[in-house]
């Protein structure tokens, strides 16, 4: 059987506005705790923002954002994009994620965008890039797989 989308649905097409995704994100306590929100991207897509705050610092001497928080943010940025194109309310489940730390994440806001590399019927492959001042100088990138099939599907 082919790994194409559900009948009548082209996978990858937006099903939610940025406002609607924001409402879903605001219902997630951990995203509020870290300070993650979403906004419109320049290309018509969606961009996630990790607001800097003292509670996400890992190294107070530099200071730098905790590597785990950067990982959590990249995972959330992938979920944000998957919610934007999801046909239903089910949250995508992470299967695996690999994070490359390229630069120290300084004490400013961090942004992230996600590209869906392959959208299967059950599993989606994503690529995420996070940056601070310059999108051409990412602080971290991630690649991962998410399960998008509903348990009863």
């Amino acid at each position, binding site marked *: 059987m082919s790994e194409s989308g559900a009948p009548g649905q082209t996978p990858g097409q937006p099903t939610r506005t940025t406002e609607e995704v924001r409402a879903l994100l605001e219902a*997630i306590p951990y995203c509020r*705790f870290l300070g993650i929100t979403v906004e419109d991207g320049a290309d018509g897509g969606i961009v996630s923002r990790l607001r800097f705050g003292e509670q996400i610092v*890992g190294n*107070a001497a530099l200071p730098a954002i905790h*590597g*785990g928080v950067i*990982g959590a943010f990249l995972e959330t940025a992938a979920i944000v994009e998957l919610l934007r194109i999801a046909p239903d309310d089910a949250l995508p489940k992470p*299967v695996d*994620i690999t994070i490359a730390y390229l630069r120290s994440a300084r004490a400013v806001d961090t942004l992230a965008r996600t590209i869906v590399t392959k959208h299967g019927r059950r599993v989606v492959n994503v690529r995420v890039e996070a940056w601070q001042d310059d999108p051409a100088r990412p602080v971290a990138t991630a690649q991962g797989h998410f399960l998008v099939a509903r348990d009863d599907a």
Partner: protein
Amino acid sequence: MVEVGPVSTSAILDAVAERKGMLVNYVPHAVALGLVVVDARPGEAWLKVPYGAKLVGNPATGVIHGGVITTLLDNCAGIAVATALPDLRSIATLDLRIDYMKPATPGLDVIGYTRCYKVTRHIAFVQGAAYHEDPNDPIATTAMTFMLGANKAAPGAWSGVKS
């Protein structure tokens, strides 16, 4: 569970013996998350993240966000690398892979275990897992690499530990 060698007398391990909180208390996010050092030995560390409402990633089920596991294991690995090194050096995460085997059970604390199994001149290699009670029934497993001495100006995380 694991073969344990003689406990070294490094400053970090002394700190563990004296006061486990010392290893995470100077990491602001570790404090915010409520991370607790359960134990540390040369090249190994066990950390715990207590279940809390603010860690929930799925409000419908109460399951904690995968990012909590990432942070637990990243922080845990930093300690495993530090206790594997003969001296205090800066440690920076280079690459981190997490495989999620099953969702964490709502209401239960999560233990992170990491082992630094190889140190070269520039790189440390770590593997580990997150679980509730049985390490053989993991919530997630991890493989990580760390860069050593990347930031000479800021030994950073270990500046709070007396050498």
